[in-house]
């Protein structure tokens, strides 16, 4: 047991414990806050594992943005203070599948890696990650940026009632107008 092992164990325990509370807590907002704890502990695990940049990105994006969005949504959908009674479905299938997946994978990993020591990695620098992303992974990176853009547009369209959710009548009207425009454009194109 080295210092790193102790840290890994402690942070892992926090992460799993908080994760357990996320999926079992009857308090809506508290589950989001437990998620913050869990994700923070995972960021700590990244630090111990030498992925410093990933850890801070985790904090920046997950804790700073994703969880806040989730909490935001929970509050917008009128989360009460105190336990909510009807949050859960029957437990049996979920326990079977979830427990099976979790424990099975854990057993698999435990069997594969045993109690073997691995050399601790040197802390990753931003430079190295940068080289990786803009060297080997530049194409996925660009694809991701397009995905992000489309997600952005999608989220805006969904949440703006004036351009997103339309009543059928209005939608038909819009389609008709669009078709007309298309026809006009085609005519022009032929003329030109």
């Amino acid at each position: 047991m080295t210092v790193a092992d102790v840290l890994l164990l402690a942070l892992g325990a926090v992460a799993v414990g908080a994760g357990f509370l996320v999926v079992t807590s009857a308090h809506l907002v508290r589950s989001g806050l437990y998620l913050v704890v869990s994700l923070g502990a995972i960021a700590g695990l990244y630090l111990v594992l030498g992925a410093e940049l990933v850890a801070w990105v985790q904090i920046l994006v997950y804790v700073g943005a994703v969880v806040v969005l989730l909490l935001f949504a929970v509050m917008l959908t009128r989360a009460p203070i105190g336990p909510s009674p009807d949050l859960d479905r029957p437990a049996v299938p979920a326990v079977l599948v979830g427990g099976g997946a979790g424990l099975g994978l854990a057993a698999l990993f435990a069997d594969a890696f045993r109690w073997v020591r691995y050399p601790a990695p040197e802390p990753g620098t931003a430079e190295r990650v940068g080289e990786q992303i803009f060297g080997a992974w530049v194409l996925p990176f660009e694809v991701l940026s397009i995905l992000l853009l489309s997600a952005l547009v999608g989220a805006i369209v969904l949440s703006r009632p004036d351009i997103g959710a339309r009543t059928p009548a209005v939608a038909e009207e819009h389609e008709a107008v669009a078709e007309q425009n298309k026809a006009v454009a085609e005519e022009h194109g032929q003329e030109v």
Partner: protein
Amino acid sequence: MPLWLDLLIRVAAVLAGFLVLPLVVGQAEHKVMAHMQGRVGPMYAGAFHGWAQLIADGVKFVQKEDITPHDADRTVFRLAPIVALFPYLVVVMTIPIGPGLVAQSLDIGLFLVLAVLGIGVVAVLMSAWASANKYSLLGGVRGAAQLLGYELPLVLAAASVAMAAGTLSLPGIVEAWQPWWLIWQAPAGLVFFIAGLAEIRRPPFDMPIADSELVFGYMTEYTGLRFAFFLLAEYVGIVVIAALTTVLFLGGWHGPMEDQLGWLWTLLKIGALSFVIIWLRVTFPRMREDQLQRLCWLVLVPVALAQLVLTVAVKALT
């Protein structure tokens, strides 16, 4: 020097800075704001010009009853002020004061600072929701929208200067800094400063608090020491934003005799920026919620993006 002594000195220095600088800024705010409004401000606490006012305030806050609303979510309610204060403590640790004078030098210190500053939102949401008060909740939702929005120009502006310096380490950025960056990085600096103001919810960006419409926003239900924690977080926030702007855009310890007086230059620049923050608070009225978002998305973000392009262009040319 043994390791433990080194560590002890660092921790003590950070704690001292964490406790003293906000007090100085708070007192400066009392006095500067008063004089800008034609008043004299506190005069009695401590014999000379009320210098001990904030200490007296602290004593008062300690004596006050610690009230938790009946319907509140107690644990969350009580944790929120600590969560609000904690990120700033971490940030103060990484700010270089002089050449080699930094509590914890990190390879990607800038990233850490930006990431940790983002945790403040969670504290706002926690206090807002746990108070079981509609004003608090409104303030918290406003705060979350504001902080999420302004994080973008903040990060983009910081990215510009990091790109110019070619490093993410805060001391590294200061070392790479040159006087002409004052002009080259000026738009980014301005965007960073304004977005930073919004991040610490200072007037004119104090819509989450907005005492004339939302009572006191997410802090409405807080009393005594917990409220003092929020106030302390606000003042530390001023120091942190001023310090970050100094380090990133004003060249930190650069100045005459920087080897000996570097720390003094940094502190002076931080003080000047803190004064500007107070000045802005006195001068400008609170913005409206839609004006706030408009400023962020239609002004600051495009300016920050343009600055990124400019930075890349200059970097590529030189």
